[in-house]
């Protein structure tokens, strides 16, 4: 059944692609959750390009809950048999939706534009469902960043740490000087963000793959994982006592104001620094968290099976524009992420973005480019949620590392 639907859909798409572009009937209803200031501006870029190419764009922004509300709206629409043309979905959720049999095939556009060679292999695999292309990637956020207040580091004679031992030594020094070493917000996803960077740093990329992507029980219960939780316990000591429930941008503000020295957060934190008029390299420093590797968080649009030539033409046009070099450049400059295409000129981007792009290319070659589990790129919701529960329970209590590892292994088994 599935394959029948998809072969038909792709056949129609192939026929429609060339013909309807010229007609200007392309239409798209796009469900997304880019509603905050900078994000809304970014999505407007796509909207304008779509209109400039003769398409009719129906915007369906759903704010709230980091995409939870949009997910609920999407489920309701799909259940009612009235799916939007395109929806902002990412990571394994694309495969989950594909398994429900509701995604359309955009292989014709992808193949015509040679996406397979433009995208890093790891990222391209997320956009493909059983060999067909079913989603278009928009940007790459790097998650394993450590941000620092340059002035504080200089005043205390500290370099950006390249190992966790160095980080701990630097943090001890800062604490002795009366500065909060690590600005952190005690929300489960932020705990998970720090955790995954520690897993990557302490265990390496292969361990990360085994533990947080393949959910290998041996890796989850290994001594390395105990060491990861030990490091988390150490880091809990570097966070101020009032961190519970703090939003990530308030933690970023602590680094900006000199209250705290470091923050571990994805590159959306850069947007906060930039918005406050801070200059990378001068007011704040960016570096990858200790250890080798790169954790990516890629936003993407999945196309849904819809009826009507105009809508199918809209999907093809949308997919083409999303991956277009112009949109990739303008959008990502607005949003603080980097283009997912490897051939975009980065001269207009800031130093942190250029570092991110260079690291993405090198880690892709080295096989250490890994999906972020904390941001829903590596696992289905049930499994990633189960890990996050353990991580946040450990970080917010005095649980021992051995107990945490035991609990982690049970939680994973229970979530299957």
């Amino acid at each position, binding site marked *: 059944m599935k394959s029948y639907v998809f072969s038909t859909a792709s056949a129609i798409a192939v026929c429609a692609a060339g013909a309807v572009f010229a007609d200007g009937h392309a239409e798209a209803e796009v469900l997304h959750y880019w509603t905050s200031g900078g994000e809304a501006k970014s999505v407007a870029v796509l909207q304008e390009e779509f209109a400039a190419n003769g398409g009719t764009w129906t915007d369906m922004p759903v704010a709230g809950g980091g995409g939870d509300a949009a997910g609920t709206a999407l489920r309701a629409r799909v259940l009612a048999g009235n799916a939007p043309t395109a929806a902002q979905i990412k990571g394994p959720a694309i495969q989950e939706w594909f398994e429900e049999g509701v995604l359309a095939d955009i292989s014709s556009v992808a193949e015509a534009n040679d996406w397979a060679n433009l995208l890093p292999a790891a990222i391209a695999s997320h956009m493909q469902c059983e060999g067909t292309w079913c989603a278009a990637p928009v940007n790459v956020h790097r998650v394993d960043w450590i941000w620092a207040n340059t002035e504080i580091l200089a005043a205390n004679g500290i370099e950006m740490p390249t190992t966790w031992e160095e980080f701990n030594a630097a943090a001890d020094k800062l604490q002795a000087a009366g500065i909060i070493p690590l600005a952190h917000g005690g929300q*489960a996803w932020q705990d998970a963000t720090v955790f995954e960077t520690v897993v990557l740093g302490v265990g390496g990329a292969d361990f990360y793959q085994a533990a947080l992507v393949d959910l290998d029980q041996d890796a989850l219960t290994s001594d390395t994982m105990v060491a990861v939780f030990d490091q988390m316990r150490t880091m809990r000591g570097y966070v101020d006592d009032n*961190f*519970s429930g703090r939003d990530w941008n308030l933690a970023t503000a602590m680094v900006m104001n000199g209250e705290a020295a470091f923050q571990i957060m994805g590159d959306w934190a850069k947007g906060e620094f930039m918005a406050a008029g801070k200059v990378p390299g001068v007011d704040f420093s960016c570096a990858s968290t200790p250890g080798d590797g790169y954790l990516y968080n890629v936003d993407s649009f999945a196309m849904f099976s819809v009826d009507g030539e105009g809508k199918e033409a809209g999907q093809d046009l949308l997919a083409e524009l999303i991956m277009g070099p112009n949109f990739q450049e303008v959008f990502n400059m607005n949003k603080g992420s980097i283009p997912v295409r490897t051939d975009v000129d980065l001269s207009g981007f800031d130093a942190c973005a250029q570092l991110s792009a260079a690291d993405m290319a090198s880690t892709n070659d080295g096989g250490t480019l890994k999906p972020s589990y904390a941001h829903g790129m590596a696992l289905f919701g049930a499994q990633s949620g189960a890990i996050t*529960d353990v991580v946040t329970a450990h970080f917010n209590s005095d649980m021992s590392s051995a107990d945490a590892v035991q609990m982690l292994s049970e*939680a994973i088994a229970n979530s299957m």
Partner: protein
Amino acid sequence: MTRWLQDNMPKIVLAPSFIAVMVFVYGFIAWTAWVSLTRSRLMPRYEIDSFIQYERLASSPRFEVAMTNLFIFGALFIVIAMVLGLLLAILLDQKIRTEGAIRTIYLYPMALSMIVTGTAWKWILNPELGIEATVQGWGFANFEFNWLVDPDMAIYTVVLAAIWQSSGFVMALFLAGLRSVDEEIIKAAQVDGIPTWRVYSAIIIPSMAPIFLSAFIVLAHLAIKSFDLVIALTGGGPGYATDLPATYMYAMAFSRGDIGQAASSAMVMMLVVFAIVVPYLYSELRTKDD
């Protein structure tokens, strides 16, 4: 025709709401029960697959925390709100001059939504902004009141905020009850020289038994449904230390794409409500039959 209409008018008038209740309450309860027996993930699926979701629920440490919290929160909230409400009502019942104004003041928190209550208490209890910072600012440098960020104590902040919100309402219920007690009996007792506290403990309060039951039922279902207060006050944190079954259900259904788990936890919540409401209904119906 007119005759038929006259005979059937009540049924016709009631039919739409009856149908709506059947579909939107009982129909969806049945749907949830069905889904709770499946392996539904992102979208509901309908192939029944044993009690796997309930087994997962039983071995989930997070749901265990949520249920424990529900009992701590429910018990403390109901008992303290009722005791406080009764005390306030008795004090207000002493024929004091500004009763109207005071009653309004105590009832006023009820006018706020739980989200507002939660946000306000979040600031009051925040160690860096609220009570702790203020008292330390007065010079008591060792003063500590950090329940909100202490995983072992955070659930009590939820109790605190909920009591603040609801005890005024309980007071109003009890006040109505106190006023409904026959003046003659009280006067007779006073003539006999019985002290006021005995009048309350032996006459007035026992005759208010139905009000206690109503207050209990209202508070119990508020406790079990509690969701917005936790979300606004602690967000379920620190960690998941203040999770309640309702927030667990929400997380599973809307963040995790695990509808089967959400449905089974919703069924467990419903059973808890039934455990409280069914005996109540049973006793109500039986007294009517007698």
